[in-house]
């Protein structure tokens, strides 16, 4: 595979099915778009594979991005494809270094939109310092994909070892880096059939700089996880199960913005089930909780301590309500469907 493997033609400002490799126009796409925006020494060598040098243990991850709509308030499919993969590395204590990038594009996709997406990816890369060092593009017949899908894989150097969802222990404190559910609520509100107008913005963002700051203050979280699909509820349930502990949350401590809550009220959803794209959950030692919160607050005023590890019901997540009652927080179901009445 070439570092940017192209088999496409650009005609009348939309991406066309390949007329055969190596066409002048397809080189133009590589040069004018990918090399221009993703430019770095390794990529520009244009070899069959990128040669990388890494000194520490490596974290390696991959994710595919299919978000619809592809442009939304606060981000787009390109920004997510960079933030999502670098965040997965960051959550394992690894500094994001090198990414691969695969585009699958529907025939007829707007060249201008593709450029917007690529530009947005380049912008987001700056936030973690990671580089795209190899890539691939396929154009498929109309209807074979919905507009554009992106896959990114990434490797990072592990700066802090042993951060794992298996490591939560008694008396650890659970924090969240900002208000939850903004991405899920934004995507939902931008779906055509809902016709909602709102000022909601996705939280889509790279988290490495925050994580790095936590490390620089000599804080080693037991576990970190960006609360993407399945939201806060999924992360905490997985942690409770894998670490065999009980996670107890204070309901009124969980930060939720009014507009997100509004969407939930209207359709009968829970903010804890909504996806996030730039919000992470940390479990830290009790003595580190205050300092961690201070650091998180530098990035978002809504960062909060939301709970702690207890022995109450091992393997479960419990929410203590403001009314003095408590209930389980369950794993969200796959598809969010509005309640009927």
């Amino acid at each position, binding site marked *: 595979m070439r570092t940017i493997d192209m088999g496409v033609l650009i005609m009348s400002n939309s991406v066309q099915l390949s007329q055969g490799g190596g066409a002048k126009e397809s080189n133009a796409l590589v040069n004018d778009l990918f090399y221009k925006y993703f430019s770095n020494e390794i990529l520009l060598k244009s070899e069959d594979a990128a040669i990388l040098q890494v000194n520490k243990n490596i974290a390696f991850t991959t994710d595919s991005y299919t978000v619809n709509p592809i442009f939304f308030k606060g981000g787009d499919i390109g920004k997510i494809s960079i933030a999502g993969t670098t965040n997965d590395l960051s959550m394992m204590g690894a500094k994001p270094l090198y990414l691969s990038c695969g585009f699958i594009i529907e025939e007829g996709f707007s060249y201008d939109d593709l450029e917007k997406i690529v530009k947005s990816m380049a912008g987001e890369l700056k936030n973690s310092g990671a580089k795209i060092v190899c890539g691939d593009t396929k154009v498929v017949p109309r209807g074979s994909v919905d507009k554009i899908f992106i896959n990114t894989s990434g490797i990072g150097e592990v700066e802090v070892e042993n951060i794992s969802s298996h490591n939560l222990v008694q008396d650890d404190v659970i924090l969240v880096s900002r208000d939850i559910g903004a991405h899920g609520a934004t995507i939902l509100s931008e779906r055509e059939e809902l016709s909602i107008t709102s000022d909601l913005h996705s939280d889509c963002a790279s988290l490495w700089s925050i994580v790095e700051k936590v490390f620089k203050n000599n804080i080693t979280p037991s576990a970190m996880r960006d609360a993407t699909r399945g939201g806060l509820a999924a992360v905490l349930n997985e942690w409770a199960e894998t670490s065999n502990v009980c996670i107890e949350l204070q309901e009124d401590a969980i930060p939720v913005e009014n507009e997100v*809550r509004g969407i939930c009220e209207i359709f009968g959803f829970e903010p804890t089930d909504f996806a996030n794209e730039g919000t992470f959950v940390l479990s830290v030692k009790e003595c580190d909780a205050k300092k961690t919160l201070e650091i998180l607050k530098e990035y978002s005023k809504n960062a909060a301590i939301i709970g702690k590890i207890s022995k109450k019901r091992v393997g479960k997540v419990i929410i203590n309500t403001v009314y003095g009652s408590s209930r389980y927080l369950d794993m969200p*179901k796959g598809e969010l469907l509005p309640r009927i*009445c």
Partner: protein
Amino acid sequence: MELKDLYEGFRNPQTIKSFASEIAKEAESLAEPLRVMEVCGGHTHTIMKYGLLQILPKNIKFVHGPGCPVCIMPKERIDHAISLAKMDNTILCTLGDMIRVPGSYSSLALERAKGADIRALYSPLDVIKISKENSNKNVIFFAIGFETTTPMTAAVIDYVVKNRISNVYFHINHVLVPPAVRAIMNPRKAKINAFIGPSHVSVITGSKIYEPLSDEYKTPIVVSGFEPVDVMEAILLLVKQKNVGKAEVEIEYKRSVTRDGNIKAQELIEKYLEVRGHFRWRGIGDIPESALKLKNEYSYLDAEILFKDRLSNEEIDDHKQCICGTILQGLAYPQDCKVFAKVCTPSNPLGSCMVSDEGACNAYYRYGSIDNE
């Protein structure tokens, strides 16, 4: 004003705690435990989500009623939806959890994955838009719900009739609250001695529909809103009625419910829909005159009639181990069922109460009742 200003007062912890202590005081005088059925799944959801059971005295117990439109749909009718969705050139539209519920051999979600065009709507009126965008296809609205959602279906029918839209059909599964309450109370075994009346159903119907029930069964009924303060206030009103030996219909949800209800909505429903002779309820069985159907003059829109060759009405019962019927009558709780949370889970429901978010078993499974373990 923000949205939260509308509901915050109804979730105020201080108000709820005040109600809890007043209820505790009043409940000391109860001659027998209050076994209150909240008919509507929305109330079940509120009770479980806010953990209200835990802040109420032990002599107040909830019996979770049949008021979840997805839960009460018998399998043969879910099979109808699946059969309709599988027809060529067809878009099947329906609401919420209906997509997930398994019928006897498949579910709408599975059929959608296999390629059927199935849409989960946010509003029934989206049917109109979908029909216009797909004028070469048949759009079938699989209409479900209690009296709450019926007016929206009637509004869609109204639009389709008046604008002579030729590619929309209806499969009507709208059900009625009072006959279901009768079916639960009639065996006389049922241990229910108070009711929380539905919120949104009552907005449409008015509270008058419960008056014959409170008279006949000598049982107080308080129509309550869906917020936790509403439910607490409704409980207090029920306990007070009990203590003075009253059995009346009261409205707690005064901000939305009147005795007569929404007359315009009722008229729209009456224009297009009429009561059908029989309807089978999952977990309860056949209840006479408990559901609606399209009036004969609109049978040209009725998918149940037009496609009857494809739709079997053979009754398909739930698993023998399932005790939903008993749970619905207040004679058992979810955790009394042998298969609860073991074989029967929300992803593999054996019976009606596990099916949707608003079913009793599902609510117990999802939110647990930490005290009940």
